[in-house]
């Protein structure tokens, strides 16, 4: 079964269409990267899958089930999203504990205290962070909380929208390690957006390169490592990364 299937997907914001005719299949357990130009529609695709960009045509299915155009409760057990900005993705007036218990409360899951504790441990956060407010945490710590929150409902698919681009290298490394470990331990499927090719190389199996709202190339990470990309734009990206 494919974790994510996108067929002929067009996405618009109001009157402007920003993503055109995207077709992708991501098998369960795969880690897939979306890279490409800023503004090319990477985040938009993730948001459409999650139900946050409702204005699309085509087909989206997640874990074999067709997606509706909106967020719904059932899908939240299957797929969760982690956002780019660790500063904007936590409610400033809620403790970490509250943020993590909330998904459980929504779905009426019991044993909240223990689950929160366990999850904090899983993402490598000390228990003393549990009753802090977000502003008492560093960026990396917040991103861990955001990941923990996404994992609270034990989804199968994680949508990661530039989860490390706001962090500096040392913190980025921690988060990347965490993601890699979680994926291994829980058999998750990742759909990761980034513009950092080394990150793709570290974390992913395949990648798609986007430009102007279209996928221009889909490649294996092996191709990336061997600089064996076909499209000129993909090569341009690679060249810039390797630098002068």
């Amino acid at each position: 079964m494919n974790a994510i299937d996108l067929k002929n997907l067009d996405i618009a914001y109001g009157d402007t269409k920003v993503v055109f005719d995207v077709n992708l299949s991501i098998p369960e357990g795969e880690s897939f990267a979306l890279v490409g130009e800023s503004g090319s529609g990477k985040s938009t695709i993730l948001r459409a899958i999650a139900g946050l960009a409702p204005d699309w045509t085509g087909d989206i299915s997640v874990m074999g089930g067709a997606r509706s155009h909106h967020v719904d409760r059932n899908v939240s057990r299957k797929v969760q999203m982690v956002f780019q900005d660790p500063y904007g993705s936590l409610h400033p007036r809620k403790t970490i504990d509250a943020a993590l218990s909330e998904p459980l409360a929504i779905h009426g899951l019991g044993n909240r205290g223990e689950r929160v504790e366990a999850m904090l441990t899983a993402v490598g956060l000390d228990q003393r962070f549990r009753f802090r407010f977000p502003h008492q945490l560093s960026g990396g710590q917040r991103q861990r909380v955001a990941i923990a929150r996404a994992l609270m409902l034990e989804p199968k698919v994680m949508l990661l929208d530039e989860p490390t681009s706001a962090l500096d290298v040392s913190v980025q490394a921690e988060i990347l390690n965490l993601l890699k470990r979680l994926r291994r331990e829980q058999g998750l499927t990742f759909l990761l957006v980034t513009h950092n090719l080394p990150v793709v190389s570290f974390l992913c199996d395949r990648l798609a390169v986007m430009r102007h709202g279209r996928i221009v190339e889909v490649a294996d990470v092996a191709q990336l490592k061997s600089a064996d990309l076909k499209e000129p734009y993909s090569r341009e990206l690679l060249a810039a990364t390797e630098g002068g």
Partner: protein
Amino acid sequence: MMSNRDWLLADSPTSRLQANVGRAYRVFTALMRNPLSVLGGVIILVLLLTAAFAPWIAPYSAVGQDLGNRLMPPSAAHWMGTDELGRDIFSRVVWGSQITLTIVLLVALISAPLGLLIGAIAGYFGGWVDRFLMGFTDIFLSLPKLILALAFVAALGPGINNAIIAIAITSWPAYARIARAETLTIRNAEYIQAVQLAGGGPVRLIVQHILPLCTSSMIIRVTLDMAGVILTAAGLGFLGLGAQPPLPEWGAMISRGRTFILDQWWVATMPGFAIIIVSLGFCFLGDGLRDVLDPKSEGKN
């Protein structure tokens, strides 16, 4: 054993309670660092104490008339003089603090939550809900305020409680607009979307996530508006529709005293001072809160 202060300021609270109390304590200490807001706080505190201990503070009854001793200037026996029925103005001002406090509290408790809710709903749902609710709000906003209040007082009958309800009804639209504007900036925040993704419904989002964030600016705004509320009550008093006589409502006292303003200045001026001081108190406190509660400044450091 940790000292209380350490417990409050602990970096890693061990319970939800400690976390929240700690936050409140931080806000409080930050407030205490601003001299004007301390002054404001002291004024409000004095108001609270006066209201609570009015029977012990007031040297005379608030309604006891002494027609032989009317319109006496301030003296040792009557610190603020006496009014047109020979009542001790100081005692009336003291008793009046209870009414003022009631007005202020009730209006804050009725209109702010009402406005908050309407604004948050409009802002959160957008579209036709927003258009409808805001159209409604705009209509209320474009109705002359005093007229609206008057109409309600007239409809509900005179009396301080009705006056309070009337004022509350006229002041929610402003709060609704603020709440809506703020909700719009929050609505698309990622932490809201995260809850949506977790399956949280509109009620949960509005009540548990959006409202708490609008509350601080609402508290600020409400404290700043308190002066206006007291004055609106006084305005109703001016038209004779505020508190029922012989209640020592400050606005009604000034309004009755205004015919004496040229010759027996103290009758209107003393309660006037009371209003000014309390209003200033609220304003100072509100100003201080503005600096302290501002979510922008809190997110950092």
